[in-house]
């Protein structure tokens, strides 16, 4: 079973910025235990561009599709046998990243 694990940051009270060594160590463990599929950090939301080509012409808009206090800072894709395993890893991930984590199953 695959889960999308989103790292949620907060513009008003952001998490600390010195997390990379701890995250790398955690990633090594995910790989060693067979949970790792993919991961990546994202650039700031204001670097986003939204494209809407449902009409005749493609509309290109600057900025994220949603202006909010909370935003997506990065993602993992994990392989885990069930939600309890994913949630236990997410609890560690939240500590390691110093941010909230959303766990959502793939269909």
């Amino acid at each position, binding site marked *: 079973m695959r889960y999308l694990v989103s790292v949620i940051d907060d513009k008003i009270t952001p998490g600390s910025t010195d997390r990379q060594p701890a995250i790398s160590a955690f990633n090594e463990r995910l790989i060693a235990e067979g949970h790792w599929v993919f991961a990546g950090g994202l650039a700031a939301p204001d670097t986003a561009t939204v494209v809407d080509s449902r009409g005749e012409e493609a509309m290109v808009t600057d900025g994220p599709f949603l202006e909010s206090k909370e935003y997506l800072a990065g993602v993992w894709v994990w392989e885990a046998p*069930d*939600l309890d395993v994913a949630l236990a890893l997410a609890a560690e991930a939240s500590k390691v990243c110093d941010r909230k984590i959303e766990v*959502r199953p793939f269909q």
Partner: protein
Amino acid sequence: MSDTEAAITQAHHEEWARVVAALTRRFGDLDIAEEAAAEAFVTAVERWPADGIPPNPGAWLTTTANRKAIDRLRRENKRDDKQKEARMVYDDDPPEPLGAIDDDRLRLIFTCCHPALAVEARVALTLRMVGGLTVPEIARAFLVAESAMGQRITRAKAKIKAARIPYRVPSAEDLPARVSSVLTALFLVFNEGYLATGADTDPLRHDLTAEAIRLTRLIRALLPDNGEVAGLLALMLLTEARRPARVSAVGELVALDEQDRGAWDTALIAEGHRLVRERLAAAAAGVAPGRYQILAAINAVHTSARDMRDTDWSQVLALYDQLVRLEPSPVIALNRAIAVAELDGPEVALAAVDRLEHKLDGYHPYHATRADLLRRLGRSRESREAYDKALALAGNTAETAYLTRRRDQLR
């Protein structure tokens, strides 16, 4: 009721959870398990009057439900994960052994009360899958439209399936935290029965309190060494014991000081006291009690007293102090103040209660407690105002009647 009807009702009470749980284990799907269990009971209603009650109703129901589930899967064979279903149909392997506390029903309760589900969904799902209540019954109990309750249950089942919430008793290290989620759900069911909300419902819902006690007894049988389970069971029994004295003939709530203690259920009290003594012995041996055990001990003090004056209030206060340290909530501070009033007088208690205003302004017992303390201090005008605030927030018909009479007695 005929003997057969009585046997079916009894089987429904005793075997529903076992049948649903056994099918969930085999088919890995709550919907299939629930529908097949329901069909098996329908078949029992059709067949038992003619064929007689089977010697082992539980086994008969499980076998019948298994067959219904397989029939259903074969009928729906067009569905996408054909192979997975085919495997389930032929999977007759015994369940993997999982330790002493394992039981299919216990796994079912832990699945329904998983922390990834909303609290209301946990309560509803537990009543449906473990308690066997129908969706309309659960909707009525929580004053929610049937369609909304149906959706809540459907959504919870869909999340269990899509997110793969496991059908499993948590590991020993996770058990205490997960048991507390189960106990919260059961306590909510009990409380709704003990002080039901709504203008058109009975003020006391014995069906809900009885169901909560029955399910807690089940958990107790499955986890006999868990102190909080014993504590919650004792708390429920000692509270339920006072039910016969709690509402007057005219439908008014009767406060503890005016209750006819002769009407209390002595058998429930004896059982509750036995459990509290068992936990006290454990506490003496160094096991720190949790909130339900302390609340049960407070209720044991109340149910030991011959009348209100005879109550050992210093003991009650000491227990509240212990509870406040464990769980510093304003509601507990409010209840503690009621004991303070008995020991140090209403003036001291009122000062403590007034400090809680900003946290409890929307909570009717806060205003009702204040009203009572102000009444005892002879501050009638302020007392009347507090009763009015309490009445505007109270949702229980018997409690409204009580508060109205108290207010109207003020000169």
